[in-house]
């Protein structure tokens, strides 16, 4: 009897391995090996076109990139984009979600959900292409802003001015992902039991008070998690900036880290240097991911 039991256990283990090993092999070759390889290569002066074996240079690539104004500019561009995007996105999507939860008509809510989410459905390259035309000097961007501010004929230089081109990339991202974050917040808001609001209304609190005193504190974990998610996405941005530069925008203001890795590694064939940049990007994102895990563990609320 005992022997047979062991037999079943063995059989189970064998099938468990059979089902999971292919994926593990896959991740080893296409995730673990590359990140270790990036770490290793970042210590060498590796250039693809050179036939000589690469020279070991220790942390040389890191000292190089951390003393290069070009890489600092990339870090600046990435953080300007990340902060400039996630702060407005979180604030506005929270506001919009609160408005939508307060809509009495279920149909209207469903309609707005679908409409706001639609830009997230199209690909980021298409989004960038559309806005490239809107930001044309004679395009809709200037026409709308001038109509709103009553300043006919002024060109805002959406794609030409240093500051404006950063604002433009932020607008594209904001437009594309606002609906996505609205839905995340609606999910969070719907999890707050209505009984709490009923109790507050009986106690005589206004909707405004209820939002600041009840909704926001209870929603804090969602806000933190959504913020970190938004930041992680923004740190990886590539398509919008790439397309804008292809479309003639100046490179320097929007030369985010991913774009710099691509140019350094693929266009200029400086693999070692690009690997060091990759490792820096990886570490920045690792810190945010770690924060995300910490918050998602410690901040679980029970109502």
């Amino acid at each position, binding site marked *: 009897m005992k022997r047979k039991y062991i037999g079943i256990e063995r059989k189970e283990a064998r099938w468990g391995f059979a089902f999971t090993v292919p994926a593990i092999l896959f991740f080893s070759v296409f995730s673990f090996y590359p990140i270790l390889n990036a770490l290793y290569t970042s210590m060498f002066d590796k250039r693809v076109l050179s036939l000589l074996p690469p020279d070991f240079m220790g942390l040389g690539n890191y000292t190089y990139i951390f003393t290069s104004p070009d890489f600092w500019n990339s870090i600046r561009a990435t953080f300007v984009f990340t902060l400039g995007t996630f702060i407005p996105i979180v604030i506005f999507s929270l506001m919009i979600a609160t*408005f939508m939860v307060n809509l009495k008509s279920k149909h209207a809510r469903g309609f707005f959900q679908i409409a706001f989410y639609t830009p997230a459905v199209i690909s980021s390259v*298409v989004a960038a292409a559309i806005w490239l*035309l809107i930001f044309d000097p004679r395009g809709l961007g200037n026409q709308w802003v001038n109509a709103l501010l009553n300043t006919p004929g002024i060109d805002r230089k959406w794609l030409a001015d240093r500051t404006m081109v950063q604002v433009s990339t932020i607008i594209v991202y904001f437009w594309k992902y606002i*609906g996505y974050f609205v839905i*995340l917040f609606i999910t969070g808001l719907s999890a707050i039991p209505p009984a709490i609001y009923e109790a507050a209304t009986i106690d005589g609190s206004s909707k405004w008070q209820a939002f600041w005193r009840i909704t926001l504190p209870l929603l804090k974990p969602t806000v933190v998690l959504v913020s970190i998610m938004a930041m992680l996405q923004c740190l990886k941005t590539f398509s919008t900036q790439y397309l804008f530069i292809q479309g003639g925008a100046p490179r320097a203001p929007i030369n985010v880290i*991913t774009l710099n890795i691509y140019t350094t590694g693929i266009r200029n064939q400086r693999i070692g240097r690009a*690997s060091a940049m*990759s490792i820096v990007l990886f570490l920045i994102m690792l810190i945010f991911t770690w924060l995300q895990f910490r918050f998602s563990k410690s901040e679980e609320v029970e109502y």
Partner: protein
Amino acid sequence: MEDSIKRIPWASIFIWTALILVFVFTVMPLVFMFTSSFMTSRQIVRMPFSWIPETFHYDNYIKALQGNDGSWIFPRNVFNSLFVSITVAITTILIASITGYGIAKFNFRGRNLIFMMIMATMMIPFEAIMIPLYMVATGLRMQDTYAGLIVPFLVSAFGVFQMRQYLTTFPSEYLDASRVDGLGEFGIFWRIVFPNCAPVIATLGILSFRGQWDNLLWPLLVTQSEKMKTIPLYISKFAEEKLTDEGAMMAVAVIASLPMFIMFGALSKYFIGGSAVYESRKG
């Protein structure tokens, strides 16, 4: 409640105004894409912009398919995008569900380690490993091939994670009953477990399809010839030459968006439901 009918509902007016403004902001650029795809370039940059095409200028679509150089390469690029995205969606669903099943329902030594390893890969962003991945692809002679476009995305850690979470709650009694009935382990997976994963399969399929449909960075690295390129690359080439033909560029954009709009129309609840979970690793 009686007197609230007479009072002007300011809050409600404010909410509706705000939502309608957001609606205008999100939808206008999409409307712009559609209408301007039927306009001549001259009309697109006319001030003030008129939203209705003065003539139905479907030439843009012919030009979009034909390309600026008249090579008719775009249909091939559309096929590439479809082929890569569909293949990746299918392999992700299959491999993620079988791996998730193995982790969720089988007891073996190292199971937790395997799960932790797969979770750990979610922390490795594609952007940080694209350079070494490019060298792996070169080493395996996968440059400029479908294998090169597909293989790095065969399965996603996020997919395995989703499947594992979903299948942990799957009642083991069904599995044992099927074993008693003499069904083999693969048979159990294929006939009992897999069909029961439908909701996760839909979400995961959409996510993986979108990931590749949207992927610009990897095809940019791994493809060289025009005939292996995908839609995002074709669009970025158009953007480079945009001053020559805005209308055709928007026609390309419409064609590139159609599959997504169709899927969104048919399966919007999986899109919106799927966005409520973390999209930790996109291609």
